[in-house]
Each structure stands twice: as structure tokens, then as C-alpha cells.
């Protein structure tokens, strides 16, 4: 109700904005900004009229033109790394020389810290930020890949090249053993309901990321801060002449690597010893891996118009991306609109902000079973018959992969609408109050139709689903800012209300007479099989939070924050939780290090905080609910013989509470050698308590055999180092190197505890299982106290015996079985020792060259795909790898460390070469570039790519292509792009 009114008034204000600009009278001024030291032009310098938000940026030649009100007298000139200047407006063209700032790198960067911003030099927690100029170049599947490998402590894994899968994101290691561990995304101050929604934010609209890493920094997000917080700032307009920007690229992608399967001739040769070899020759010559792959087209276009005047500024943008997948019939198309506006009024005391975005995404998704078919299908089978129809064949998990890609219809439409507005008013120069309101509506519609395949005997079926994930959020906030003598105090207090409502409607049917109708006539099949389903759920989070920052003379800092969160998910005993934090920091340059010339700035930090996570808990986990538990047969009721039975839906746990991460962080930020080398180092040691896990409990008396309970602890320790160096800083040539390295270690420390006085214990819980024929009930990874999550427990492969049977510590499985034992197994930690990334940027006159190397060291991946398919016994009916013919192993697949392959890698993630055309008439900026992604990867891993999903589910670190799991191949891409700004 409150929200609706707010939105109405925001819209009204918005309308006014378009009328106001017409009223002003202006004069035009021009000028040029250069470096005071070498006289080189400075592009992108901010020029604003003092006391207003009217302004512009200099072009690539350092020149600017600005239309200012007739009354304007002073310009304010600011630029990152340079001292601010105020220049009187004389009427003549201005020549402005800027001096480089002493503590350049951190001085003027403003970073979001949650419910406010701070200058980077004043930040006391572990916070990293990445601006758009440092984003990864090239094709961007998921916007977060813009910063993949760039931030120490932030590990982003894009397992495969499917444009429709999201990346897994882990900030400072694994934080939970159930539930989502992705950081909280906050876009323009509004937290996204689901981190997965972030992949629907158009990458071209993003201006910068601020990554809150340690518990003291994320404590301001309280119960949602345990996984870290990524604050995303979208591009905003600024007052001045309207500018039009175009950013776009187009290019191609190809599958980066293939498994080494037998070719048709090799396969024929390999099966020639079988008496029935000839019967497998169906006249085909098919490389099934290549048959399903293609050269994919990709393009991205972003057009933005921005400008404003007299306290009004706006930016509107349109985005269109089309990204084909390299596997047939997979595709992602996205059309996005975004509008941001700000109006200042009443002597700049009133500040109104509005943001609206709508993104429509259309996805074509594929059946991952085809990744098994391509290994199973003999290369002697053709894709198509002579008449152009698909060659149909079937056997266990074997079918024509191409027809299974091209014939089914799988379309998903996603509509994400985010609307936010805020009104702030300065009651006093030091005191500001405001309200914020936002709504997020995410509508996902899936449409699918599965046709009849010849010889497979299946029936056709169609399914539609409609999911809504909506939220309504609002806050009331007060900000206080005061400096007296050398003391500065700022304080923020917020009341926040969040309401989340999720619902679904779905229907499906089968046996349709007219397959061409797809899913458009769902009721037209066999009515007996029509099913419908729906659900709806809701939960609320209410919060009170506050933060106080104090600093003495920019030398000594203290920050303290406190958040109290209440969530309707929890039982009466633990509805509310408290999340405090405190930080201290010293900047030593002006005291101890005053005389040390080579140190320009040095800050020591230490912080402590408590943050929470409640993602693993459903909205109603704490209470007894009755729901349908399957149908039953009532023979005496002819009209309704199969009613639903009702029973409790779960073991309710009224004691459920937040997982709590208690984090300690110490860090150092520095800038050395005349600011040529800067960076930061953080060490953290966190303990997560009250881990949520589904514990096995005895039935009876429990009604279900598992209960979600807060039991157990885990620890995260890590060291993060980030460095940026200006290797060459010359008149024409500049070379910047930056890099980061991340060490992190997660250990399950305890999995035992009590529920309502009852002892809950878990000593060794199987997590990941081997996939493959005859490999059911074969656990590979375990959760075990004292070990890393996903610890492998495997027999040790020692070779083969004379008849080709695999040996484990010298004996075959049959020998162990005969002796009533099984091969001894050993614990192996698959997690990486460290992750790293190094980027190099060169500029020479108008040329720019950058490349970014990214890697992981010490990781191991279980190559379940080769376990299944590098087996000679698969012949003649299924294809095998070349290695299977020569490795001397003659028996079937057995899980062992033979398949746990080293998966350290170094990847040339992206490289780009750009040229800036200067003085092009009509353009203030005209840059074209070539870029490539995944240009090479150095690894011993024998799968398609060592970057597999390693943290999203129980099958982490297991790379399999069986029964619906599969590795969508990584791609290599080349694009040509342009960044253009119209004058």
C-alpha cells in the first residue's frame, strides 16, 4: 500500500522531469584538460557547474563543450587520480592542467558499502571494486563473467558453454552444506530475490561492481550476508548535452575441444574381430560430436542516451543480445530496456531517483541426454537417410542425437522487471531522511513439446509452466554526516521491509494427434494423462539496521554496524537474529611513514562481524503443515476413485535459526613508488556455526527420516593478494599489470549436535555418486568432519594384470570380493590450492592491447565421462576413445583415482586489440576492437575443459555425461566490436 503510493508519486515526478528542461537559458563554454606534468590530453575528465549536477566528460582529446546556465560562474573539474580544481568561467576557451594526486589510486574512488557509499580511502572492511574499464573483454554469457578472475577471493566458475546456464559464484569458499551459496546481488541498492536473476541484467548497462568480502563489510546485510555481497551499479546519466553511446560486438564461437573418439575407419577396424561387425555398418560416416556442434553466431548491441539539465539527469538504454549455443538448437536472446533518472529540487535538498528496467529473455534449451548419445552411437550410423529424414535407431541410452536436438521444442521466456524509486530530503546540511521502494517481478514461462521418435516407441508430450517470483521491498532511512575539527562522523539508520511471494502454475499432457500444435493445445491429448499443478508461498524479512563511521583526521577509523533481522521462515524461538560488526583502520602515511618516500599510502585494517544465511530454509520449514502425500484408491467411489491423501509435509523444526558466519579479517591497502604499485592483502579466518543440514533421524518416532536442523560447523581460511602496477607510464606508451591470487581452504569441522535434546550425528555422508552403467550405488565424494567438502574416497589404481584386469593396490576387485573385502580407499581433497588472474593492458598512441590470463592450481576433477567411455568392452555396439584400444585395460569401469585427474589450468581468458579513431567528425569517441575468448588453455585434464561446476550440487568435481548430465562444451570465440559516442 505504502509502496504503491510511492510508485504513483514517483511516476508523477518522472513526468515533470520532461517538462522542466525546456525552461532554462544557457550559454556554451569549451575547453581542454591536460596532465600538468606531460601535457597529454586527459579523456573522461568530469566537468560540472559548481552547485549543480550539470556536467559533461572530456573526449579522447581532453576537449569538452558544455552548455551552462547564463548565471553559472565556476566549473568543478575532477578526475580519478588527480586533484580536484575549480575554474572560473571567463567566456574564453579554458585550458585546464590537472595535477596528479599524491594518494591517487584510492582517493576519489567511491565504493558502495551497502545502504551508502564511502570514498575508497575511508573504507575499513575488505571491499574490492571493479570499474567497467577493467571488465573482461569479449563475449559475455553471464554479466558476472565481466569480473571473472579479477577479484581476489571471488571464484566464478562457468561450467561449460551453454548460454542458458548460470555461473557458480563463491566468495571466500564454501559457506554452507545446503542451500544457495551465491553472494547476494544488490543492483542500484535493491537486493535481487535470487542470485540467478543477475544473469538477466544486460552486461552493457553495468558501470561497476563493489564486492563486499569480509563479515564486517557484509554484516550490514545481516541474515543475507554470509555468502558475501556484490553491489552492482548501473550506468547513470549526468546533466549536460545529450550523448548517445553505442557499444556492440558481433562474432563467432566454436567448440574449443572434442573427446578423442574413434573415427569411422578406426571403429570399423576395432570391431573387425567381431563376427557380426558387418551388421553395424549402416553406411554412415558420422563424427557425432561434430554433428551436434556448430559455429555459433553471437552479437550484442547496447544503445544509450543520457543527459539532463538543471538538477535533472537521466539515462535510457536498449540492449539486444543474441547468443547462439555451439550445440544445435540452443540459443539465448535478450532484449532489455533500462531507464534511470534523478531530479534534484528545492535547493538540491530534495533528491528523487527512479530506475526502471525490463528484460525479456528467450531461451532455447536442449536435452542433455544427447551428451550420452554422442558417445554411445557408432560412427557408422548416418545422421540422415538418403531421403533427408533422420536415421532412427535406439538402444540403451542410444539415439540419434541430432534429431533429439532439432525435433523437440523447448522454449523459455523470462521477464524480469525491476522498479525502484527513492526520495531523500536534507532536513539539515548534516541530516538526510528518505524512503526507498522497489518491486521485482520475475515471470518465467516454459513451453515444451516432445515428439514421437521412430523406433523409440515413446508417446509425444507437452508441458507448460508459469513461475512467478515477485517481491515488494521498502525502507525508511536516516543519514547523518558531520565533521568538526578533525573529527568526522557519519551514521545511517534504516528500517527495511521485504515481502517475497513465489507461485507456479503448470500443466502437461500427452498423446497429441497433431504434433504441429506443439504445446498450444494442451487439453487435446489423452485426457487421462492431463495433469495440472500449482503452488504459492510467501515469506517476509523485516530489518532494523544502523552503522556509524568515525574517523579522526583521515588517519584513524572506526566503523560499527548492527542489524537485527526478523524472518517469517523461523519459529517463534528464533524469529529475530542480531548481526553486529566492528572495524578499525589506521592510515600510517601521515604519522609513522611521513618520511618514507617510496610509500604513498598505507592502511592497516582489522574487522570482525557476524552474518547469516537462511537460504536452505523454506518459508514454512519451522511449522507443521499438511499437504498432499500421494493418491490412494477407493474402489467404493466410482466417481472419484483416486483422491489425495494428506499428511504432515515434513518434520517441523520450530528451533530453526540462521546459519551464522563469524568472520575475522585483517588487511593492508597500499600504494607505493609514486603510486606505481598499489594493492591490498587480506587474511581471513571464518567459522560458520549452526550449519543447516537434513539429518537422518529414526522413523518412528519421527514422521520423516530426515529433519532440517542447525547442527555442525565449518571453517574458512584464506589469503587474498591483489596488485596493480604501472609498469610503464610514458607519453605514448602505458603498460599496466594487475593480478590477484586467492588461497582458500574450507573444512567441515563438526556435523554433530542436538535437536530438541536428541543427539544428531553424521560421521561420513555420501554426496556425489558415480554415473554410468552398473555404477549405481557407488559414492565418490563424502561430507566428513575434518575434511574438505566433497572429499573423494577412492581405491588406488596400480595398473593391470596379465589379462587386462585393473588392479587396486595390486589386486583385482574380484580378488577382493572373493576374500570378502573391497579395495582399500583413500581420502583425496579435490579443491584447488589457489586461483589466480593476471591482466595486462598496453596503450600506445591510439592503440590499446589487453589480455587476461586466469588459472586454478591444485584442483582435481573426477573424469566420469572417460570412466564410462574409455572402456574397450563397449565395443562393438558403442563407440570408445582411442585410448581405450591401447591402454591395455580389458575389464569394465571401476571407480578409482585413475579417473581423478589433475585439473589445474591456465587459460588465456580473453585478449583484445583496439584502435581509437581521433577527431572523427560527429563522434566524440570512436573505438573499434577485435577480441577473443578462451584462446588457449593449458591443462593436463583430459575432459573437454577443466572448468566444470565445482560447487553447485552434490555432484561437484564430477564431470559426467550420463543419464541427463553432460558437459556442454566450452567455446572459443572471436568478435569484432565498437564503442561509439556521438557528439
Amino acid at each position, binding site marked *: 500500500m505504502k509502496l504503491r503510493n510511492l510508485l504513483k508519486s514517483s511516476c508523477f515526478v518522472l513526468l515533470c522531469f520532461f517538462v522542466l528542461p525546456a525552461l532554462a537559458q544557457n550559454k556554451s563554454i569549451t575547453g581542454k584538460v591536460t596532465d600538468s606534468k606531460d601535457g597529454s590530453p586527459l579523456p573522461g575528465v568530469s566537468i560540472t557547474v559548481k552547485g549543480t549536477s550539470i556536467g559533461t566528460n572530456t573526449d579522447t582529446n581532453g576537449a569538452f563543450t558544455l552548455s551552462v546556465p547564463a548565471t553559472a560562474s565556476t566549473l568543478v573539474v575532477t578526475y580519478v587520480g588527480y586533484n580536484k580544481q575549480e575554474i572560473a568561467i571567463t567566456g574564453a576557451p579554458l585550458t585546464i592542467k590537472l595535477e596528479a594526486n599524491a594518494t591517487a589510486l584510492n582517493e576519489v574512488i567511491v565504493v558502495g558499502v551497502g545502504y551508502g557509499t564511502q570514498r575508497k580511502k575511508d573504507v575499513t572492511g575488505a571491499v574490492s571494486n571493479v570499474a567497467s574499464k577493467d571488465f573482461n573483454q569479449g563475449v559475455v554469457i553471464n554479466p558476472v563473467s565481466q569480473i571473472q578472475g579479477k577479484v581476489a577471493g571471488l571464484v566464478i566458475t562457468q561450467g561449460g558453454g551453454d548460454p542458458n546456464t548460470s555461473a557458480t559464484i563463491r566468495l571466500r569458499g564454501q559457506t554452507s552444506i545446503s542451500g544457495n551459496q551465491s553472494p547476494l546481488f544488490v543492483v542500484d541498492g535493491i537486493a535481487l530475490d535470487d542470485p540467478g536473476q543477475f544473469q538477466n541484467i544486460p552486461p552493457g548497462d553495468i558501470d561497476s561492481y563493489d564486492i563486499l568480502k569480509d563479515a564486517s563489510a557484509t554484516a550490514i546485510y545481516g541474515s543475507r550476508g554470509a555468502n558475501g555481497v556484490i553491489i552492482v551499479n548501473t550506468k547513470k546519466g549526468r546533466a549536460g548535452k545529450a550523448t548517445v553511446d553505442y557499444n556492440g560486438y558481433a562474432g563467432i564461437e566454436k567448440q574449443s575441444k572434442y573427446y578423442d573418439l574413434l573415427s569411422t575407419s578406426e571403429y570399423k577396424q576395432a570391431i573387425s574381430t567381431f563376427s557380426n561387425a558387418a551388421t553395424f555398418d549402416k553406411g554412415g560416416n558420422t563424427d557425432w560430436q561434430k554433428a551436434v556442434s556448430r559455429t555459433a553466431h553471437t552479437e550484442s548491441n547496447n544503445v544509450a542516451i543520457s543527459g539532463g539539465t538543471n538538477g535533472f539527469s537521466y539515462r535510457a538504454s536498449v540492449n539486444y543480445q543474441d547468443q547462439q549455443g555451439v550445440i544445435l538448437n540452443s540459443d539465448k536472446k535478450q532484449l532489455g530496456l533500462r531507464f534511470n533518472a534523478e531530479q534534484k529540487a528545492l535547493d538540491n535538498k530534495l533528491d528523487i531517483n527512479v530506475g526502471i528496467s525490463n528484460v525479456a529473455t528467450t531461451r532455447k534449451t536442449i536435452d542433455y541426454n544427447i551428451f550420452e548419445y554422442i558417445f554411445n552411437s557408432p560412427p557408422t550410423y548416418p545422421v540422415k537417410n538418403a531421403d533427408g529424414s533422420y536415421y532412427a535407431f535406439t538402444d540403451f541410452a542410444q539415439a540419434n542425437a541430432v534429431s533429439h536436438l532439432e525435433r523437440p521444442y523447448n522454449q523459455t521466456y523470462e521477464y524480469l522487471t525491476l522498479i525502484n524509486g527513492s526520495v531523500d530530503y536534507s532536513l539539515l546540511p548534516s541530516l538526510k531522511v528518505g524512503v526507498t521502494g522497489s518491486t521485482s517481478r520475475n515471470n518465467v514461462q516454459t513451453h515444451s513439446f516432445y515428439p514421437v521418435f521412430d523406433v523409440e516407441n515413446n508417446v509425444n508430450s507437452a508441458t507448460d509452466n508459469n513461475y512467478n517470483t515477485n517481491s515488494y521491498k521498502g525502507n525508511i532511512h536516516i543519514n547523518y554526516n558531520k565533521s568538526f575539527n578533525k573529527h568526522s562522523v557519519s551514521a545511517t539508520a534504516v528500517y527495511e521491509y521485504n515481502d517475497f511471494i513465489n507461485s507456479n502454475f503448470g500443466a502437461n499432457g500427452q498423446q497429441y494427434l497433431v504434433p504441429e500444435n506443439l504445446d498450444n493445445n494442451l487439453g487435446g491429448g489423452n485426457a487421462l494423462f492431463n495433469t495440472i499443478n500449482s503452488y*504459492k508461498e510467501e515469506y517476509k524479512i523485516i530489518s532494523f539496521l544502523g552503522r556509524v563511521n568515525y574517523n579522526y583526521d583521515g588517519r584513524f577509523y572506526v566503523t560499527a554496524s548492527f542489524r537485527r533481522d526478523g524472518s517469517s521462515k523461523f519459529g517463534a524461538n528464533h524469529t529475530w537474529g542480531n548481526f553486529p560488526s566492528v572495524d578499525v583502520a589506521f592510515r600510517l602515511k601521515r604519522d609513522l611513514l611521513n618520511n618514507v618516500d617510496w610509500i604513498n599510502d598505507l592502511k592497516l585494517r582489522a574487522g570482525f562481524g557476524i552474518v547469516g544465511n537462511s537460504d536452505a530454509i523454506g518459508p514454512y520449514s519451522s511449522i507443521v503443515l499438511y499437504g498432499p502425500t500421494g493418491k490412494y484408491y477407493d474402489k467404493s467411489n466410482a466417481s472419484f476413485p483416486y483422491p489425495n491423501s494428506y499428511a504432515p509435509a515434513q518434520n517441523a523444526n520450530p528451533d530453526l535459526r540462521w546459519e551464522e558466519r563469524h568472520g575475522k579479517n585483517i588487511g593492508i591497502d597500499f600504494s607505493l613508488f609514486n603510486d606505481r604499485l598499489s594493492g591490498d592483502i587480506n587474511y581471513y579466518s571464518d567459522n560458520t556455526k549452526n550449519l543447516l543440514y537434513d539429518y537422518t533421524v529414526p522413523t518412528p*518416532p519421527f514422521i520423516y527420516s530426515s529433519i532440517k536442523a542447525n547442527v555442525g560447523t565449518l571453517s574458512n581460511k584464506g589469503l587474498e593478494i591483489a596488485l596493480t602496477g604501472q609498469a610503464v607510464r610514458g607519453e605514448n606508451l602505458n603498460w599496466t599489470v594487475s593480478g590477484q591470487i586467492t588461497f582458500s581452504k574450507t573444512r567441515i569441522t563438526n556435523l554433530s549436535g542436538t535437536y530438541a*535434546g536428541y543427539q544428531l*550425528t553424521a560421521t561420513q555422508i555420501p554426496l556425489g555418486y558415480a554415473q554410468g552403467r552398473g555404477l549405481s550405488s557407488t559414492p565418490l565424494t563424502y561430507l566428513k568432519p575434518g575434511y574438505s567438502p566433497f572429499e573423494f574416497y577412492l581405491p588406488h589404481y596400480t595398473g593391470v594384470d596379465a589379462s587386462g584386469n585393473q588392479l587396486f593396490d595390486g589386486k583385482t576387485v574380484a580378488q577382493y570380493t572373493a576374500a570378502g573385502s573391497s579395495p582399500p580407499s583413500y581420502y583425496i581433497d579435490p579443491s584447488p590450492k589457489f586461483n589466480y588472474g593476471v591482466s595486462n593492458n598496453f596503450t600506445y598512441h591510439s592503440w590499446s592491447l589487453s589480455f587476461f590470463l586466469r588459472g586454478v592450481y591444485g584442483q582435481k576433477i573426477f573424469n566420469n565421462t572417460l570412466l564410462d567411455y574409455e572402456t574397450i568392452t563397449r565395443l562393438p555396439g558403442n563407440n570408445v576413445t582411442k585410448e581405450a584400444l591401447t591402454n591395455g585395460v580389458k*575389464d569394465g569401469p571401476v571407480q578409482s583415482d585413475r579417473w581423478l585427474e589433475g585439473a589445474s589450468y591456465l587459460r588465456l581468458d580473453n585478449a583484445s586489440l583496439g584502435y581509437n579513431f581521433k577527431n572523427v567528425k560527429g563522434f566524440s569517441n570512436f573505438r573499434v576492437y577485435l577480441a577473443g575468448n578462451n584462446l588457449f588453455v593449458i591443462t593436463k585434464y583430459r575432459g573437454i575443459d577443466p572448468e566444470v561446476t565445482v560447487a553447485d550440487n552434490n555432484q561437484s568435481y564430477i564431470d559426467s555425461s550420463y543419464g541427463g548430465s553432460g558437459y556442454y562444451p566450452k567455446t572459443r570465440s572471436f568478435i569484432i566490436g565498437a564503442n561509439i559516442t556521438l557528439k
Partner: protein
Amino acid sequence: MKKNLLKAFLVLLMTATLLPACTKLDKNVYNQVIEPNFFKTPAQIAAALAPAYNPLTQFPANNVFQLNEVSSDEMIVPTRGNDWYDGGKWQALWTHAFRPDIDNVNGGWSDISNGITKCNFVLNLLNTLQTKPANSDQIAAEIKVLRAFYFFEFMDIYGNVPIVSDYNTDPAKVVTVPRKDVYAFIEGELTTNVPLLADKSDATYGHMNKWGGYMLLAKLYLNAQVYTGTAQWTKAADAADMVIKSGKYSLQPNFLDNFIVNNENSVENIFVVPFDNINIPNNSIEMYTLNYNNISTYNLTSQPYNGFCAPTAFYRSFTATDARTKMWAIGQQYSSAGAPLTDPATQLKVIFSPYVKELSNPADSFKFAGARSIKYAPQAGTAGNTSNDGVIFRLADAYMMKAEAEIRAGSPGDALTLVNAIRTRAGVPLWTSADLTMPNLLAERGREFAWEGWRRNDLIRFEVADGIKYFTGLRNPAKPQDADTHTFIFPVPSPQLISNPKLVQNPGYGQ
């Protein structure tokens, strides 16, 4: 300045007034229901009683069935190539190398205890209902007898198990109870409650009626020697006779009609688990046993898994003229149109051989080893989850139990008549009283109840009563003789020992 202060004061006042109203964290429930709003109409009460039966749907084809069958001589799951190796669990069941970490061992425990806990829930609910249904005493008796069936399976498979009969039991007080005490508990529950049960009717189809109750009592007494060391043959015969003399059931003239897709009209079946392809899933025997290529024999919609089959000796115990032999799919397999099937992966003809000579064999031909069961007729248009109701008790078992108990009790009575009624229906030569030996009876039970989940129970009972190693002895292929008889019961599963440290592992098993 003053104006500003006033404004600030007003804002603070407003905030302070609004806040208390904004701290409510109600739970709004939409598609489920909280307890006070439920169990009001008779239909809602019926829906609340049904969960006691739902766990039964796991019994006829899944864990409980597999433990009872693969450990016996009538079913084997050989490793074909690497298929069905599955961590060696099927081989372990066959060779009696039972381990507490085999997932079926835990699955069986979970399925059974799920039934017990749901019964306890329903009984507790009945007690707390504001307005009780008119026949609430009979409902309570029915649920108690059903629970006794779950306890019977629990005790039969795991021996020493906890008895929890109150929904509100403190979990910390759940302990292992010796098998004979579990027996006594079940006996008490049955003798008290079975007489209260409803008679046969459409309304009790799929429910525990009075005759299902007596069948259970007969089973309990028949195996009393195994459970307690003291035989109860006469009581077993009497309980079985209650069913026979009730006259409510008769032998289905055509044996296999008890197992057809629409077998709800069988005149012989007493206690069944209703299944329905659309509404009640879990009867998927057709998928476990048939070969991939049988998809076209029976017009299934996906490929069966080519697993369970009959050991050679067991298949050979059927004569060609026996009507019950029709339960086996053997020899060349055909498409529904009558074309002989060829396997695309091996290009071999799909010919089921009766020979299962090894427990594991990578040869392509071994994919077709062993006779497959089509006792429960495969259902066209399905991929598992068939509509054949799962049979737990049928009249033929009353005949056979009574006959066996009478003979063992030393007063054969009508035993020969009962057994010959079975043999007549099967179309095999009648027996004379000289034929009525224990080995013959066991073999007859094998043919009559093959793959109905009773074989392990039968073998152990005959071994205990007659001292012949039917269950623990050597078996082809590859099963050595068990070291001792600890394999009569399965181990307590590891996850259960972890979740309740008060449970005691059965003798002869590790953790």
C-alpha cells in the same frame, strides 16, 4: 532552521508510530494447510487416514521385495557386462555378503519404518479429533493391524528392531527390542484387533480387512519357530482356516488373472496394494526384469533395464505343462507385430536363455541370460508404474499355509485336498499323500508364489524346521555356503546406527 527541526521531528514521530505495525512476521500459507484448519469433513478424515497405506506402495517391487527375493534361490541380478554391478550390491545380496552400507538394506528399513510411523500418526490423529467418525474404533483396529503387518516385515527382515507404537515417543528412548518380544507385541496386536476388522467389501479393497488380518496372523504363527524358537503350527493352521472357511474368497480359475493389469476383480486376492499407472506409481517390475528390446514386445514407452531374472535351477523346477510356467518370458522375443527381435548394440538375436551360469560375465550373450518374469503382465503404453495391483495375501497362500502347518503339526487333515486344489488349477498331476513331503511342499510354494516376495521367508522357515540348508547353503552360480545362520536376518543399516546410537547391530555384522 526551526522549520527543519519541526519537519525532522514529524518524520521521526511518523516512523516511530509506523514501526510496531511493520514488525509482524505472519506466515501466510496458500497451497497447504495448518493443523487447526484440517480434518473437518469426512472426506478430509479419509484423506488423513490414507497415509498409513501409502508406504505399502514401496513393498511389492522395491527394497523390501528385492531383499526378500535376491537373497533367495528364485531371483538373481547378475552383472551383465558392467550393467547391474552397482557397487557389487546385487552380488552381495545373492552371495549373502550382506553389509550394513548396502543402500537397499537401508531402503528396506526406511520403507518399513515409514509405514509404522504413518500408522502411529493416524492413530494419534484419531485420538485427538474433535468429532470422531462413527467407526473410529474399527478404523483404529484396522490401522493397528496394518501397523502389525509393517512390524511383521520389520522383524522378519531385520530381526531385532525397535517397537515404537506412540506417535509422541521421545526419540531418545528408542531402543532395539529382541525379536521374540517384537513377535509377542505383534501377536498381541493381532489377536486383539483382527476380530474387530471390517469384512470384505469394495470399501475395504486395498485395506486391511478381517481376512487380511487372519492371513497375517497365520504367517506370524507359521514362522513362530524362526522368531521365537517355539513352533505354533496349530495356531497357524487355525488362522489360515479362518480365511478359508469364511468362504469370501475362491481360487481364481486362471492363475495369471490374479496379476493382470486390471486384477482388482480377482476373487482370490485378499490383501493387495492398489497401483495405477497415472495415479499410484511404484509397481515397476516390468522395467527391472525385461530386456531393452522388449519395449516393442509389450509396446512400452521406454526401454526396460534388463536386470532381474530366474536362476537356472529355479526355472527348471517348473514343468512345461504347469500353467504357472507362463509367468516366464523365455526364448526368442518378438515385437508386438510378431517379428523376431535383434539387439541393435550386439546384433544378437534376443533369445532369453534359461542359463545363468555366472554371477558376472562380460560376454554380450550374457545380456540375454535368465528367464524373465511377466507374472505381472506388462502394461502397454507404460514405462514402469503399471496398474497391476501388488498382491500380498491371496487365498492360495491360506491353502498352502494350512496344509504345511497341519502336516508339521502331525495331523495332515485336509492338507492333501488343499495342495491338490492348487495343483489342479496349475494343470499339473495331483499328488498322493506320499508326495506330501516337506521338500515337495517348499518346491510347490516356489512355483505358486514365485516372485511374490515370500521366498526368503519360506527358505528360512523350512531350514529352521527341517535342518536342511535351503537358505544358507551353496547355490549356483557362485554362492558359497554361509559360515553360519546370522544371515537369516539382515544387518541394521549404517545410517540407522548413526542416527540412533542406541540401536544394537545384529550378530555377525559390523557397523
